[in-house]
Structure formats: C-alpha cells, structure tokens
C-alpha cells in the first residue's frame, strides 16, 4: 500500500471517529464547544483525505490522451483488456474505499441525528408567562417595587416576584401623566396613577425593548428600530414590529407596592404559528 493511501484511509477513519464522538457528546448534552470541535475535526479530516488522494494517488497531470492509431493488432488490444481486469488494481483500493464509506456513514449519522433537537412541541407554553394575579412587582435585585419609587418620566425593568431574570416575564415599568394615557379596551384602569408596564420582549424578533424616549413616550427596539407609542398601548409606530407590546395589568396595593392583576394582555415576543389571536 502506498504511504499516501494509508494516510488518506487514516483521515477517513479519523473522520468516522470524530463523527461518532460528536454523536456521543450530542446525546449526553455535554459541552457544545466539544460538539463544534469534533464536527470541525470530522469535516477537516474528510477534506484532508481527498486532498491526499488528489495529490498522491491520482496520476499526475496534465494528462493528454492521444487518439489511438487505427489498426492496432489484436494481441495488443487483448493485453490492454487483460490489464483492466487485473484483480489487484481494484483490491489495492478496497481498504481505502471501505474507510471512505465508514466516514460517509458516520457523517450521515451526524447530519440526521440532531433532528431530535427540533422537539418537543412547545404546546401552550408560549402563550403564558410567570405573571399571575397577586404577584408583586420586583426589580432585577428581587426587591419589591413601590409605586412612589417610580417618578414621572422614569423607567424600571421589572420581573414577577420569585421569577427574577425570567425571559418572558420581564417588563418595562414607566410612569406617565395619567391624563395623557389613551390605552385601548379600558386599560387605563389597570395603569394606576399613570404607572404602565409593557412586556420588554419585542413582538418582532424578541429583542429587549429597553430604549425609552421619555419626552416622546416611545419605546424603541435596538435590533430593528421598531418604535412603540406608550400612551396608546405600545402600538407599533414604525419599524418591522406589527403587534403592540402586551400590557401588564397593575394595581397599587394598600401598602404601596405594585401588584399584577394577571398575565400580560397577550402572548409576549414574536408571533408563532398557532398564536392565539
């Protein structure tokens, strides 16, 4: 066996081994960095094998195939035919072909197996957040937010008590002049003293809508510049977002803390295939 042939076969085997390793790492949910390293190794070894084959095993070019002169004698033609049927030409490459096949099968497994990652179905979970009636409003340190701590024109990122850092429960709480509020569906009643809270997750692509222009009462999304008009219920004014930010119904408890009256007025974040209207 030629040296380059052995090297190419080794490359194919490395590819197969890396692919199998990747499958094991994937099934065991361990480090995604190792998944990347192993995938890179598998593809690099696969490619290296073909580079070696091209350089070392294929006849060096440029190849010029002159037309056969007419009238070659039968003996010569027979000799050529016989050389094509010589068994060792094929068997010499059998090991290499087997190694390439192993690598291909292992790589195919790598491609097919992660289909598992598409599940399970999210069901109804996208329509709900941790907010429930009676949950107190807390800030990012978990401290309860009092209504008198939120001055006119100020902004606080808030979470439901016990769910600090919740991705779908995060909301922006602002205080505006109560008589400027024109919230739809009688929702002025759940914005006590001009304290109004909306989901912080953009309805376009899910970025945090953390930019607030206090004088214009507009919330901005930093990713694609969607602008939401706070005073009319965070309806989108410009940009790619098509739905209003869902509002969090609030009331001021007797001890001055802010309490949710229920979940958001709609599903938070980007639209999805079976989103309730």
């Amino acid at each position: 066996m030629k040296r380059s042939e052995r090297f190419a076969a080794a490359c194919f085997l490395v590819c197969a081994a890396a692919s199998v390793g990747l499958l094991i790492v994937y099934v065991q949910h361990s480090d995604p960095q190792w998944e990347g390293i192993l995938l890179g190794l598998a593809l690099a070894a696969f490619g290296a094998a073909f580079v070696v084959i091209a350089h070392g095993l294929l006849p060096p070019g440029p190849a010029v195939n002159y037309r056969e002169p007419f009238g070659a004698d039968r003996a010569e033609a027979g000799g050529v035919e016989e050389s094509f049927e010589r068994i060792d030409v094929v068997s010499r490459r059998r090991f290499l072909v087997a190694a390439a096949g192993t690598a291909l099968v292992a790589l195919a497994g790598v491609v097919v197996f992660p289909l598992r990652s598409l599940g399970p179905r999210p069901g109804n979970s996208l329509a709900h957040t941790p907010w429930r009636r009676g949950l107190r409003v807390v800030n990012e340190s978990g401290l309860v937010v009092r209504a008198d701590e939120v001055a006119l024109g100020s902004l606080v990122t808030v979470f439901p008590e016990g769910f600090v850092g919740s991705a779908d429960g995060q909301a922006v709480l602002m205080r505006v002049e109560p008589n400027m509020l024109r919230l739809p569906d009688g929702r002025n009643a759940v914005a006590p003293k001009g304290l109004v809270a909306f989901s912080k997750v953009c309805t376009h692509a899910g970025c945090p809508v953390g930019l607030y222009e206090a004088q214009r009462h507009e919330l901005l999304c930093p990713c694609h510049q969607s602008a939401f008009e706070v005073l009319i219920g965070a309806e989108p004014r410009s940009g790619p977002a098509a739905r209003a930010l869902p509002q969090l119904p609030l009331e001021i408890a007797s001890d001055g803390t802010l309490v949710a009256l229920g979940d958001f007025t709609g599903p938070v974040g980007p639209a999805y295939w079976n989103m309730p209207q």
Partner: protein
Amino acid sequence: MPGLATRLLLALPVVAGVVALLALRPTAGAETAPTARTIYLGDCAVCHGADGAGTQRGPGLLASGKAGVDFYLSTGRMPLQTPTQAVERHAPRYGPETIRALIDYIATLPGFHGPDIPVVDTAQADVARGGTLYRLNCAACHAWSGRGGALLHREAPPLDRATATQIVEAIIVGPGNMPSFGPAAINTPGQADVAAYTHQITRNPDDRGGFALWHLGPLPEGAVALFAGMLLLLVLARAIGTRA
C-alpha cells in the same frame, strides 16, 4: 476766620463727591463680574423665563433640582446660542464658581424643587454590580461600550467625557429624552457603581485581541473576521489547487 458752620458747608460738596465716587466704584466692578442674577437674566431667562417657569421657547427649570441645573451647565449643554440649537455636550460656558453661583441663584426662585447635586464616591464602588446595572438600564441606548448610539429621532451621547457626578445626575434627573432611573431601578450605591463601571469601559477598556475596531460592536468585528477568514481560505484553496 469763617465759622464752623461755614466750613462744614464748604466741605459738603467734597464729601458728597467722595461718597459718590465710592458709590460708583462697586457699580463699575459689577460690570466686569456680573452677579448670578444678571447672568441668569441675560443668558437663561430668554427661554426659561425670569421666574424659571419656562416660555414658549424653552421648558421650565423649577422641577429640575440643583442636580439638573448642574448637569446642563457643567456639561456645557446650556446655555444655547439660539433656542433651536441642538442640546449637545460642549466645553462649559462658565467657570465652576459661576456655575455654583448660578445654581444657588436658580435654587432661590419660588417653587424650585428637585434632587440635590449628588456626592459620588467611586472609590468604594462595586464595578461588577455597576456592570449588571449598566447592561440592564443604560447599554440599550448608550451602547455596551459607552460610546452612545442612534435612537429614532436623535442619538444617545457617548459617556467618555462624563464625570461621575454628571453620570449620577443624568441617572436621577433624566435630562432631555432620557428617562430618569429612580431608586427602584438604580439605588444610591448602585449609582456610584454605574459611574465606576462607565469610567472603566470608556477610559480603561479591556480590549481583548488588541484592536478594538472603534468599539463598533459585534457586527463589524464579525465582518472583519469573515473577510480575514475568506482571504485565508482563498490562500488555502490556491495552495491545494496548484496540483496540475
């Protein structure tokens, strides 16, 4: 020999002249160093009104507190040359003493209220906590690097020249279109933490990789990596392809 009364009568014009001269002197001095009231009426009252309640050209000052007045004057955002000029950071028009005198004068206007000038000590600040608060509250507009960024109608300013006091003043006052961040969002120790973190990222940024790419962010960094990687792949492809 004239009598005492006559002598006194003769002396009167002289005394009057001296008194008049003495009386004139402070007036002449006041022209070179005008009082805070004179500066206010000359530079501020055109837009904000002599009583600080605001006019059609500008908003009232009465609710801004000493912190708000200090922020606008010490960052040179005020006074404007014309009422239509953009409110941006400039070299301060007045010296620190004049600014202090102006703040004290404006604070005496009837109905003036609002936050006092904060005393910020960043020496004891928790920079890591400041980073958490900065990313939650500030980074959306002022960018992860403190270099500012575009909003819908204007832009959030860079923070690299802001002093710790000015940063905390902006947090508690919410100048211009910026919302204020009250105790529920950033409490008093948190304010110093944010100021310390802002100074760290704008004055001593930890730029791994050596070249910060002007802190433009991950998109240009990715683009540079892509083009550098493409070149590398091109060279590699040429090396592989020179078989024939």
